[in-house]
């Protein structure tokens, strides 16, 4: 494959950007900055993917990561003390272990990159990666795709159950009572009063 030199230059620049901003994630005190440094890192990787002509995956990366890092920032700010890092703090723990783990993984990945033989079967020039991805979804991978739908539905329901405080029948801590089946009747689908001893009816 031949490609212009400028692709190499941009690859190096972007790779550096990805690594540096990834490193900054752990150095900055502000949760918002950390989230968005991670976003910058992902964007740099996304551009590299586009350079590798994986155009859909690269652009999808921007898209997904923008939304996800935004949500991550919201939650980090919500639940971390000192979210803006007004007082400096140490963001990393277990230094020795993490350094060792980092070095080990780097060596392994570097070894894989250098030692393994990459397949060399050039693709036809007119191949449209997006279309082939679509055909794959409608072909062999259809079952996987539909199961992904079910998994995501489960995720959604789990998310709602765990996080939504406002129930269908009123706020959670107020005992969220469903209405009766007939007007003025007892709450539907609830154990009857006085059953709190633990003996539930089995219907």
């Amino acid at each position, binding site marked *: 494959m031949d490609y212009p030199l400028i692709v190499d230059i941009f690859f190096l620049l972007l790779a550096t950007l990805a690594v540096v901003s990834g490193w900054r994630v752990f150095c900055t005190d502000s949760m918002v900055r950390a989230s968005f440094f991670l976003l910058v890192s992902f964007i740099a990787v996304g551009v590299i993917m586009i350079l590798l002509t994986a155009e*859909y995956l690269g652009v999808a990366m921007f*898209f997904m990561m*923008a939304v996800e890092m935004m949500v991550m920032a*919201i939650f980090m700010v919500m639940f971390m003390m000192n979210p803006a890092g007004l007082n400096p703090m140490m963001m990393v723990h277990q230094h020795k272990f993490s350094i060792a783990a980092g070095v080990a993984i780097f060596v392994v990945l570097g070894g894989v990159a250098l030692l393994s033989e990459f397949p060399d079967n050039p693709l036809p020039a007119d191949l449209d990666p*997006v279309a082939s991805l679509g055909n794959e979804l409608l072909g062999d991978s259809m079952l996987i795709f539909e199961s992904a739908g079910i998994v995501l539905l489960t995720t959604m329901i789990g998310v709602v159950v765990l996080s939504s405080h406002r129930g269908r029948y009123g706020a959670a801590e107020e005992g969220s009572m469903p209405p009766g089946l007939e007007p003025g009747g007892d709450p539907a689908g609830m154990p009857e009063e006085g059953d709190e001893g633990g003996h539930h009816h089995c219907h």
Partner: protein
Amino acid sequence: MIVNELILPVILVTIVLVVGAYLVAVIDGMIAAALGTPQRGGAWLAPLTQGAWLLTQQANATEAPDWRAWRLAPALYLALAATGLAVVPFSPTLIPTDLVTSVVLWGSVEALATVVIFLHGWSANTLLALIGAYRYVALGLSYILISMFVLIGVALPAESLQFSQVVASQEGLWNVIRQPLGLPLFLIVGLGMTFWGPFNLADSRDLAGGTASTVSGPSRLVWELARAAMLVAFSGVAASAFLGGWLGPWLPGPLWVMLKMLGVLAVLLLLGRLLPRVQPERCVTLMWVVLLPLSFVDLIWAGVEALL
């Protein structure tokens, strides 16, 4: 070749962005005057004098802002607007960025705009700006799904995620007629992206200007400029996705694109002046419960239409 593929598009996008942003201010001023806002001097001069005043005004600071994010946010918003405009095909050959997945790239511009607007309000470290920023995120995360559905709708008949193909697929009939729900839904997305009019949750009056309430001088100028530029970029995308982009008789393609952009802008600005601000909570419910199902319908419509 360099001239045609690099220099010309770059100059074109820059000029359209700056002139477009100026025209946004002019048209908005004219609409305001027509609707009864008292005005002195012409609508043509007002944006310039306003800009000049902002340039002479001191840039404000807050007690402990996130300096870099605060100054970067308006510039990045402007850069996103430029990216958005860059995917718009001005003619079959004059396309600044003709990526195979330019429709998805525009989607990521929308997603990143939310990040940038949030950053602008967050980094000021003041109460009213912060509330504006968080409110905007609720809106930004809601309109994005609608926009995805609507744009997938236009990608169906084109069989491509490329805006130039989307325009080409409208040769027979424009998408605005073929998919009647598409453009109205997409216009709502546009008002949301630029927090204009009814969706001005970020910089609204009840927050004394929200995320912009603490900025002044040049920073505010860039912020307002970027907001207008984003409206221009959006109108370009809407013109290509629904109004047949460069297609049209007699006039050259780029001129058609710009005329259609002006039309979209006028409609957006008029809507912005006519509608009241939607309450944030109601806005989220509206987006998910009313507009999202409508965009489902739009997609199904587009699918059926494309197969027939």
